C-alpha cells in the first residue's frame, strides 16, 4: 500500500473541529441537555457487600407525591444463568442484567436494588429511602486472598472450578516451549510476588443520560458513553425494545478510559421513561461513580524469570490473579497476554485467573490488565538485569521481540518498533542526565494488542463544495482532528473545509466502541476508502465535462486536472466547481464505507522515570519522565502526545497514590476525589514524549493505535526508579507516603543528612 508522504495536513497540529465548542463551554455533554417534561431518576443501592434479597416493597415510594415510576429487577429482561452465555462484544448479558439491577442477591455495596423517577431529584432520592428491602446479610470477601480460600463465601453457587463451587471464574494460559526445561538452562532465576490495588478510571464526567420513550416504544437516548451502538444494543437487550426503535445519540464524552464501555443507567432510565411516559434524566454522583462503576482489578501476580550469564532470557513463568468484582470478566487476557510480549522468550508460561469478590464489577481501564502484568514482569526484569550487572535497556535490547518473533498469545510479529523505542530511550538526553542525591531512575517497557473491528463512515460533499464526514465512534481524545487531517489531505483541500460529525445509531452504520486504541486506526480506513470513492466520482465528472477518459483525469490540490497535456488542455475543475455542477452532472456526491477493519499492529513503549525521595514526608516525587512509543504514524502529533502524557499521569497516580480503601464493613471508604487521590497539576513534572514512527504497513496512513500503551509501563518505571533511589524495592502498590516512610529507616535518613 502506498503511504501518503509529503503531507500538508497529516502530521500537522491542526485545531480540532470540536475545539471551539469545548473552550467556550458550548459543547453538550450528557448532563447538559434537558427535554420538555423531563423528570429525574435515582437509584437505590445496596448497603451490604453480600446479601440475599428476600423481598422489595416499593408501595410507599410509589405513593409519594411527585413519584412517577419505580422499577426493580422484575422490569428488566432476565438472562437466566442456566441458559448459557449471551455475549454482546466481550460482555455476557447474564452478568449485565444482574449488574444494572441486583436480581436475587446484592453482590457489592452500591449494587442497584431499585430505581425511581420523580419530578425532582430530591423527591426521587426521598422515594428511594421509602423502599423497603428485606435482606439476608451474607458473609463476604473483597480481597483475592480471601476470595480464593476453600471456605470463602461463594458469590455464584453455580460457578465451579476444579469441580467445586468457587470464586475463580476462569483461567487462561499462554504457553510456548517448556518452562521446566528452560529454567534448567538459567544461570540466574528471580521470582517475586506483587500486589496492586483496584484503581478507578477517574473520568471527570460522571455517568449521565437523558432518555425519552414514546408510547409506541420509539426511544431516544442521549448519553455519555464510549459507544452509542453498545448503548443501543445493551439497552435493547435489557428492556426488550428492538434496536431499530432505539436512537442512541452520542453526547460529548468527558473521559472514559474504558470505564464507559458498558451501561449502568440507560436501561433503568429507559424503563422509568416507558413507565412514566416522561423523559427521564439520570446523573450519577461522584460517590456513585466510585462505588458502583469500574474500577479496574486489584491483583496478585507471581513472576519468575530465568536468564543465562550473557543476558539471554531462557524461561519465564507468570501467574496473574485479577479481581473481577461481582461478576466474572477481569482482564486476565491483557495481564497474561501482554506482559511478556516485548520479549522473545523461548520457554514461557503465562497464566491468568479471574476471581470474583464482593466489590463492583470491574470495567476496562486503558490496556485492561496489561499494566498490572507489566508492573510485575518489568520489576523482575529490573532485578534480573541488576543481578547480571547489565544496563536495564541493554538487557531489553538483548531480548527484544522483533519481526518474526512469535508471541505466546499467537501472532508472529511483522515489522514492529519495539527495539526503536528502547534505543530512543537509551539515546535520550534524559537517560544520560546525571542524578542528584536521593534521586533514582527507572525504566520499563510495555505492549498492548491494539484492535481494528467494525467501523462506518459517510463522506458527503456539500453543495458549496465543502465536506462533511460522519463516523460512528465517540471522539474522546481528539480523533475528529485526525480524521479532518486525513480527509483534507486526500482531497487536497484546507482542513477547515472538513467538518467531522459523530453520527447517532440511526444515521450511520454500525461502529464498534471507542476503545482498544482502535478509533483512529479503524475510522481512518473507512474515511480513506469513502474519500477515495468520492475522488473517483469527481474524476469521472470532470472526464464527462471534458469528454475524455476518466483515467486521463487526476485529482490533485483539490481539483481535477488532465493527467498530461496529451489528455487535452483543460483548466482544472475544483471541488467547489464540481459540487456546484453536481445537480446537472449525476447528482449528489457522497460515499460511505462499512468494514470490519483488520491489520491493527500491536503497540510498544519504553519509559524512563526519575524520582526524588522526600525523606521527611516519605513522598516519592516524579521529577522527570520520558515516554517513548512506536506510534506508527502521528496523524495529529499534539493529540498523540496528549495520549502519552495522559496515560503516564494515570500510571503515576496508580503507582504512588491511588487505591480503593475499604471499611471493616466491606464498603469503599474513599469514594470522593479528596480521599481517592488522583494526581493534580502540582504532583507532576512536564511529561516528555518521543514518538517513534514505524508505519503500520497494513494501514493507508501507517496508523497504529496509541491510547493504551502509555499506561502499561508506568508503574514499573516508577517502582524501578524508587528502587534505584533507595535501594529498596516495593512489591505492592501504591507506593504511598506512609509506605515509603516505613522503609526510610534511620540509616537511610542519616545517610541523607
Amino acid at each position, binding site marked *: 500500500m502506498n503511504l501518503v508522504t509529503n503531507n500538508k495536513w497529516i502530521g500537522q*497540529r491542526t*485545531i*480540532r473541529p*470540536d*475545539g*471551539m*465548542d*469545548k*473552550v*467556550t*463551554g*458550548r*459543547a*453538550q*455533554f450528557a*448532563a*447538559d441537555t434537558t427535554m420538555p417534561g423531563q423528570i429525574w431518576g435515582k437509584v437505590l443501592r445496596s448497603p451490604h457487600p453480600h446479601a440475599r434479597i428476600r423481598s422489595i416493597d416499593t408501595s410507599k415510594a410509589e405513593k409519594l407525591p411527585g413519584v412517577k415510576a419505580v422499577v426493580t429487577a422484575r422490569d428488566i429482561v432476565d438472562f437466566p444463568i442456566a441458559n448459557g452465555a449471551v455475549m454482546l462484544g466481550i460482555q455476557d448479558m447474564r452478568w449485565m442484567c444482574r449488574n444494572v439491577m441486583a436480581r436475587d442477591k446484592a453482590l457489592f455495596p452500591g449494587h442497584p436494588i431499585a430505581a425511581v423517577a420523580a419530578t425532582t431529584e430530591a423527591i426521587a432520592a426521598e422515594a428511594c429511602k421509602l423502599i423497603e428491602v428485606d435482606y439476608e446479610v451474607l458473609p463476604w470477601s473483597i480481597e483475592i486472598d480471601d476470595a480464593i480460600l476453600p471456605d470463602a463465601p461463594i458469590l455464584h453457587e453455580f460457578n465451579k472450578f476444579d469441580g467445586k463451587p468457587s470464586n475463580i471464574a476462569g483461567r487462561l494460559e499462554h504457553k510456548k516451549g517448556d518452562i521446566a526445561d528452560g529454567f534448567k538452562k538459567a544461570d540466574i532465576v528471580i521470582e517475586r510476588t506483587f500486589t496492586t490495588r483496584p484503581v478507578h*478510571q*477517574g*473520568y*471527570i*464526567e*460522571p455517568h449521565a443520560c437523558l432518555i425519552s420513550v414514546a408510547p409506541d416504544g420509539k426511544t431516544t437516548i442521549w448519553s455519555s458513553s464510549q459507544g452509542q451502538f453498545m448503548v443501543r444494543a445493551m439497552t435493547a437487550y435489557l428492556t426488550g425494545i428492538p434496536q431499530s426503535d432505539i436512537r442512541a445519540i452520542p453526547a*460529548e*464524552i*468527558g*473521559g*472514559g*478510559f474504558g470505564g464507559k464501555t458498558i451501561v449502568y443507567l440507560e436501561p433503568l432510565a429507559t424503563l422509568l421513561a416507558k413507565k412514566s411516559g416522561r423523559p427521564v434524566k439520570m*446523573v450519577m*454522583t*461522584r460517590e456513585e461513580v466510585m462505588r458502583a462503576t469500574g474500577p479496574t482489578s486489584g491483583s496478585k501476580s507471581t513472576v519468575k524469570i530465568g536468564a543465562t550469564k550473557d543476558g539471554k532470557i531462557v524461561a519465564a513463568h507468570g501467574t496473574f490473579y485479577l479481581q473481577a468484582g461481582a461478576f466474572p470478566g477481569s482482564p486476565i487476557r491483557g495481564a497474561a497476554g501482554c506482559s511478556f510480549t516485548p520479549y522473545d522468550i523461548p520457554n514461557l508460561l503465562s497464566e491468568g485467573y479471574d476471581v470474583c469478590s464482593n466489590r463492583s464489577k470491574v470495567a476496562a481501564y486503558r490496556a485492561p490488565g496489561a499494566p498490572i502484568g507489566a508492573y510485575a514482569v518489568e520489576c523482575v526484569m529490573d532485578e534480573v538485569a541488576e543481578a547480571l550487572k547489565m544496563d536495564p535497556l541493554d538487557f531489553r535490547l538483548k531480548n527484544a521481540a522483533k519481526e518474526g518473533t512469535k508471541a505466546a498469545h499467537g501472532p508472529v510479529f511483522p515489522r514492529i518498533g519495539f527495539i526503536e523505542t528502547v534505543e530512543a530511550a537509551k539515546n535520550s538526553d534524559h537517560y544520560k542526565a546525571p542524578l542528584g542525591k536521593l534521586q533514582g531512575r527507572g525504566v520499563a517497557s510495555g505492549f498492548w494488542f491494539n484492535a481494528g473491528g467494525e467501523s462506518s463512515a459517510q463522506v458527503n460533499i456539500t453543495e458549496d463544495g465543502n465536506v462533511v464526514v460522519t463516523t460512528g465512534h465517540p471522539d*474522546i*481524545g*481528539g480523533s475528529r482532528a485526525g480524521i479532518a487531517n486525513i480527509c483534507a489531505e486526500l482531497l487536497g483541500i484546507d482542513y477547515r473545509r472538513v467538518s467531522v460529525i459523530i453520527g447517532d445509531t440511526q444515521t450511520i452504520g454500525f461502529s464498534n466502541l471507542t476503545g482498544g486504541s482502535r478509533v483512529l486506526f479503524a475510522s481512518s480506513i473507512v474515511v480513506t476508502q469513502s474519500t477515495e470513492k468520492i475522488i473517483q466520482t469527481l474524476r469521472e465528472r470532470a472526464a464527462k465535462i471534458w469528454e475524455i477518459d476518466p483515467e486521463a483525469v487526476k485529482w490533485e490540490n483539490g481539483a481535477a486536472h488532465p493527467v498530461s497535456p496529451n489528455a487535452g488542455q483543460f483548466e482544472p475543475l475544483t471541488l467547489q466547481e464540481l459540487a456546484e455542477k453536481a445537480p446537472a452532472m449525476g447528482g449528489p456526491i457522497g460515499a460511505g464505507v462499512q468494514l470490519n477493519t483488520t491489520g491493527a499492529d500491536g503497540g510498544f513503549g519504553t519509559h524512563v522515570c526519575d524520582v526524588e525521595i522526600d525523606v521527611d514526608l516519605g513522598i516519592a516525587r516524579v521529577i522527570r519522565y520520558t515516554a517513548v512509543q512506536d506510534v506508527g504514524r502521528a496523524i*495529529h502529533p*499534539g*493529540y498523540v*502526545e*496528549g*495520549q502519552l*502524557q*495522559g*496515560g*503516564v*499521569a*494515570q500510571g503515576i497516580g496508580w503507582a504512588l497514590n491511588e487505591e480503593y480503601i475499604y471499611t471493616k464493613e466491606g464498603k469503599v471508604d474513599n469514594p*470522593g*476525589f*479528596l480521599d481517592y487521590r*488522583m494526581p*493534580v*497539576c*502540582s*504532583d*507532576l513534572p*512536564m*511529561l516528555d514524549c518521543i514518538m517513534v514512527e514505524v508505519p503500520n504497513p497494513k494501514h493507508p496512513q501507517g496508523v497504529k493505535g496509541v491510547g493504551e500503551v502509555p499506561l502499561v509501563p508506568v508503574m514499573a518505571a516508577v517502582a524501578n526508579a524508587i528502587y534505584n533511589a533507595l535501594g529498596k524495592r516495593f512489591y505492592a502498590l501504591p507506593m504511598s507516603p506512609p509506605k515509603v516512610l516505613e522503609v526510610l529507616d534511620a540509616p537511610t535518613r542519616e545517610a541523607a543528612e
Partner: protein
Amino acid sequence: MAKVHVTTSINGEPMEFLCEPSDTMLDALRGPLALTGSKEGCASGDCGACSITLDDRLICSCLMLAVEAQDHEIRTIEGMAQGDKLHPLQQKFLEMAALQCGICTSGMLVASDALLKKNPDPSEEEVRFWLAGNLCRCTGYDKIVRAVMETAAEMRAQ
C-alpha cells in the same frame, strides 16, 4: 417550599433567577440560568470543573449557595470570549491541544484566567499550584501548563 428570588450580575449582564435555598450556585447556573459550561465533576470542591469567579475571586460554584450571588458579580466560561473573539487563553488551549475530552476545560480556563489577572508572570510552579484544584484526567497537565505559560508571555508582550 418557596423559592428565593436572587438578583445578580452574570458575565456582565444583570440577571435574576429563582432557586431553592439549598441550591448551589452550580445548580442555579446549570438549571434556571441554562449556563451549562460549568460542569459538575464531584460536587465537593475537589475537581474544579465548576470553577467560576465571584467578584473576581476564583471559587468552586458547587461550594457556594446560589442565594449568595445576590448583588455580586459572577463570571463563567460563557463570558470569557468577547463575541466571536476568543480570550487568548482559549485560543492557546486550542492551538496547543491543551484539552482532550474537554470536560475540565471550562474550569481550567476560568482558573487560568483568574491566575493571569492576579499574576501576569507566573512561574511553572505557580501555575501548577494554582491549577492544583482543577483535576484533568486526560492530558497529564503538560499541555495545559505550557498553554497558560505561553499565553501569559504573549499577553505580557502586548
